[in-house]
Each structure stands twice: as C-alpha cells, then as structure tokens.
C-alpha cells in the first residue's frame, strides 16, 4: 500500500460527510438523525459532518418508504455523489415499507430496488446510537484502499 493511500485511509476514516434524503417517511427517522447532531451524541467528535449536499457527501442516509414522486429523482441524486460513496437505509420504511406497505397504498419499497444500499438499520425509528455505530463501522470498510481496489 502506498503512503498516499494510507494517508487517504486515515483521513477518510476521520472525515465522513453525510447527506440525508427523505423519500416519504413520517419524519420519525429524520428526527432521530437530527438527534445524532445534538450534544448528547455529538457526531462531530467522530469526524462525521452533515452537509446535506450530495456533491460533497460520502454517505447518503435514506428514510422513507419511497413515494412515487421520487421515481425519477433518487437515482440522479445518487449519481451526483462522487465516489467512493455508500447508501444506508434508516428505519423500516426503506427496508419493507413499515406500516405503510398495505394494499392500495402508493409506496414502492424497498429502496434497494432503486439504488444500491450497503446497510439497513431496522427499527421504527432506530436509536441514534444504532445510526452512529452503523456509519462508523461501515464507512471505513467501504472507503478503505478505495483507489487501489478500484483498478
């Protein structure tokens, strides 16, 4: 492994930029993501920073059961994120549609049908600790040696 690569690994594991998108959730999971920003959990001590701009993001958090309006919007949004990137499904909605997945509703879960999902956090909503520990354990695995394994 080159020196440059190990440097990149070290920097990337301490600097994770996050964007989140709500594709039709009840807001419960979004509030739990918001709670991660609070002093109680303080994600910036781990180097996680919320930009909410896909062009700058490494990790995309997805909440919601995928309403029809997102059909033509989520894929372009995912394509805007520069490599290396990873998408994490937050809550039951992107996994199964949660309580909304019933006959005669318009939701179209799971979100993994539309973009590749690397990890799923079940719960309605999941605890902030579950969200943070997932990002922290996932990001280094995905981003490690990215330039070398890409070739």
């Amino acid at each position, binding site marked *: 492994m080159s020196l440059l690569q190990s440097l990149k690994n070290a920097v990337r594991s301490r600097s994770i930029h996050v964007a989140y998108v709500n594709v039709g959730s009840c807001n419960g999971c979004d509030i739990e993501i918001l709670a991660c920003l609070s002093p109680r959990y303080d994600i910036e001590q781990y180097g996680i920073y919320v930009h909410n701009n896909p062009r700058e993001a490494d990790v995309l958090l997805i909440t919601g059961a995928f309403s029809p309006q997102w059909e033509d919007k989520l894929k372009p949004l995912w394509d805007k994120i520069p490599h290396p990137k990873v998408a994490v499904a937050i809550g039951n909605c992107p*996994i199964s549609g949660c309580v909304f997945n019933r006959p005669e509703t318009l939701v179209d879960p799971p979100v993994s049908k539309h973009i590749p999902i690397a990890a799923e956090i079940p719960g309605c909503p999941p605890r902030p600790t579950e969200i943070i520990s997932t990002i922290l354990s996932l990001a280094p695995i995905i981003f490690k040696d990215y330039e070398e394994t890409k070739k």
Partner: protein
Amino acid sequence: MFSIIYYIREFLRPQWITTFFTAKTAPLVTPPYFRDFPELTDKECTHCLACMMICPAPDAITVVKREEIWRPEITKGHCIRCGLCIEACPEDVLTSGRILAYKKEEELTLKGTFHIEIDQSKCMGCGNCTVACPVNREIDPSLRSSGTSSSGEVIMRVDTGQNKVLHEEKCTGCKTCEESCSNQAIRVARVVEALQGVEE
C-alpha cells in the same frame, strides 16, 4: 493587555490542554429499559395467535412450528418495536425492556374483538365472502355457493339479495372475506380493549 496575558496563562494550563484534546462524550450504550425487538422468554407458546392479531405492522410477527415447538418469530425491518405483542400474549412468551414488569404490576390484559362492516352500496350480494369465511364453513358445511344458509348461527349470510352480518362476535379476524370480495365492500376492523386489574 492584562486580559491577553490572563488568557494565554489560562490556556497553557496542562489540565486545560489535556481536557481539550481528550474530551469525549459518553460512549454509545443502550439502556437496559430500552424497548428493543421482542425476545423470547423460556415460557411455552400455546399457539393462540393473540400476538399476530394485535401486531400493527404487516408481516412483523409469525408464529411458526419448528422442531415440534410453536414459537413466535419477529422479522426485523418490519417490526416497529411497539411492544403490543408482549402485552397481548397471555403466556408471557415475549419480553422487552420493562414491559413485562409493568404488565404484571398493572394486571394489564388486552381483549380484542372484530367489527365487520359491509358497505351496502358496494356489496352486490354475491356471497363470495360468506362462502370463503372459514368460520362460516365450519358452522354450516352445507352453505350454498350463493352465500345463502338455512342456519342462523353463521357470521353472515346472503338474505334477499343482501349480505347481512348476524354473529360478529364469532369472527376471528382472518380477513379472508376482505380478500375474496371483488368490490372491496367488506371491511374487518380490530377493536381492542385494554383492561386493568383482575377480571371478575
């Protein structure tokens, strides 16, 4: 001038520097009272299905027989951790957080009944639901394909071209009738009562 010197002195204190660089918030722990996904206790499941009937999330809990033993199984990603199955189970097979403790303390029981509603402006009296209902078929095996029946004990029957509900209290909430209706005229609703204290 003095204040600048004061600040420099303050920020050069070894204790201040060490706390500044090593400060961490409390580690990420889940408290023991957190209402997590229900887990099994060592009590025996009697396959009464009270847990499945109360569950508000589609496909979250199923009671299955594995190695000759009935057991409820929770599907993560579907279960919303509401804890209702724990409260509803008469045998205390499931547990999570403090629910079992306060269930015992408050002598809590959940009693569920089912309410059948037929929208007469949509129902065309075909009798599909009446024939499909497993409870109906058990009560009156000679139920005709048009849904008419000579028995007054059935849950519902077609009478003078209209489907009428006779014995709502016998319904088990399986919703087979809803699925067999082509007009979505029949609806089965769960009505749950929470009771506190010992029943007389």
